[in-house]
């Protein structure tokens, strides 16, 4: 987040990926879309998140894309499917369809994944609040992310407590499944009880007050943000004109 890209205002980065996503969906063919992954890989290099980006992308999106590709080309039956072996066949129509679907998935996921890696949740929520998004919505987003480690710690404590009461939590799949219920019950009940207390604590801090929320934390839009947003807008208009003419 300390790179030049990381310091851009969240809505600036969002404008950029929105442009990419729209162009990826509506541009015919698949080469433009497949080119988005290397583009964002290069951008992640400049934002200092290259390794993280590659790891996340290749371990998730690549698998999904390859799976969809294989299913569309070799398993789904089209009129021109040529059988190869058993249920496996090859279809040119399937190939064209899968290139279209997988290229768009790859492009959209590349953009979104990059965005979340170069934009901290805090910055994102700040920008959403400045843009008058509902307070409850921004609260849900940020509290969900912040609370995950706390909930993990709580479930670990409950697991230890149940182990100390003689419940087996390690071993075969059946043993672990049996341990699931005695762990889930206290966890859910604890969360419900904590939710009530937290709701009261929030209410005692004027959470429901309908004033425009101010913020101690502040990030400012810089001239470069304005320039990039204008360029994105201009590119979008040019793209629409080009699509209409073409």
């Amino acid at each position, binding site marked *: 987040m300390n790179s030049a890209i990381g310091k851009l205002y969240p809505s600036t980065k969002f404008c950029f990926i929105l442009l990419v996503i729209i162009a990826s969906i509506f541009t015919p063919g698949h080469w433009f879309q497949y080119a988005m992954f290397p583009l964002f890989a290069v951008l992640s290099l400049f934002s200092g998140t290259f390794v993280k980006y590659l790891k996340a992308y290749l371990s998730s999106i690549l698998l999904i894309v390859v799976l969809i590709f294989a299913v569309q080309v070799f398993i789904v039956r089209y009129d021109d499917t040529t059988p190869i072996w058993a249920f496996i066949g090859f279809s040119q129509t399937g190939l064209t369809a899968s290139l279209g679907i997988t290229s768009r998935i790859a492009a959209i996921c590349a953009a979104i994944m990059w965005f979340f890696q170069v934009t901290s949740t805090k910055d994102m929520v700040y920008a959403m609040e400045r843009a008058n998004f509902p307070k409850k919505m921004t609260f849900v987003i940020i509290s969900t992310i*912040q609370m995950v480690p706390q909930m993990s710690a709580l479930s670990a404590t409950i697991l230890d407590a149940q182990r100390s009461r003689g419940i087996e939590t390690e071993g075969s799949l059946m043993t672990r499944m049996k341990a699931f219920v005695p762990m889930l019950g206290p966890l859910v009940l604890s969360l419900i009880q*904590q939710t009530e207390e937290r709701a*009261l*604590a929030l209410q*005692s801090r*004027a959470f429901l*007050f309908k004033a425009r929320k101010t913020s*101690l934390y502040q990030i400012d839009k810089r001239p470069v943000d304005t320039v990039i947003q204008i360029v994105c807008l201009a590119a979008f208009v040019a793209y629409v004109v080009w699509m209409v003419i073409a």
Partner: protein
Amino acid sequence: MTSISLKHVSYRYPLDTNNVIDDMSFDIEQGRTYALIGANDSGKTTVCNIIRGFIPRFYRGDLTGSVEIDGKPVTDFDDAQLTTMIGYSFQNPFTQMSGVKDNVREEIAYALENLGVPRDEMIERVDAMIELLHLEALADKNPFELSGGQKQRVALAAVLVTDPGIVILDEPTSQLDPKGTEDIFDIVELLKSQGKTVILVEHKIDLIARYCDQVLLLDGGRLVMNGPVHEVLTDPAVLDHGGQLPQVARYYLERNRRFGRHDPIPLTVEEAAAQERKGR
């Protein structure tokens, strides 16, 4: 000048058949420190919730009688007004963290943000609160990485930053070690010196004897004793209603009973020492 007034207040939670609070009446005067004591389920937290306006706003149920703050029904105040008038600190330090701030400074500022306080003023008030409660070393830490006592101090700072005239502390030390407890009661002493009205729900009777002006004893949803701390906490009848007496008071009461003495009953070790010195 009366700050809070409850008159013939009764309350029953939704789906409950019995009243949790039954025909309770008392006045809270401005600038004094009150202790609410009693056994578990005697209705202490419910009384606090009623004063703060959580009942009936958050918890529905059946509330009868009148609850007034500075002469106005508590239901006439909106959320923002109640936040700035009454600070409320809960028992569990963990659930008092908002869950949306990654450092103590912003955690303290959270209520001010919700109230729309301008940023410059917010910075000033947060810095002042950090200095007042000696939280400088914690200011940039994640609230969830703090100890229980530290979290409770941060929670109190987050409540006090709105400068409420009334502060309700619901068992603030129940999950704290002795050092954490001492820190919290130092804050109670500070609030007293600032002339704030403090309502403290506590089981640590020895500390109540030291810091509070008045004691209200609840038993089964009823107010059974209400008086100056020295009057209530030297009365053996407290024990019949699920309450406790300070150790020093119990010692002197037992000594008087066994040896037929009629010595005054001190509440604290210091009072006892002074009494003994005078006696010699």
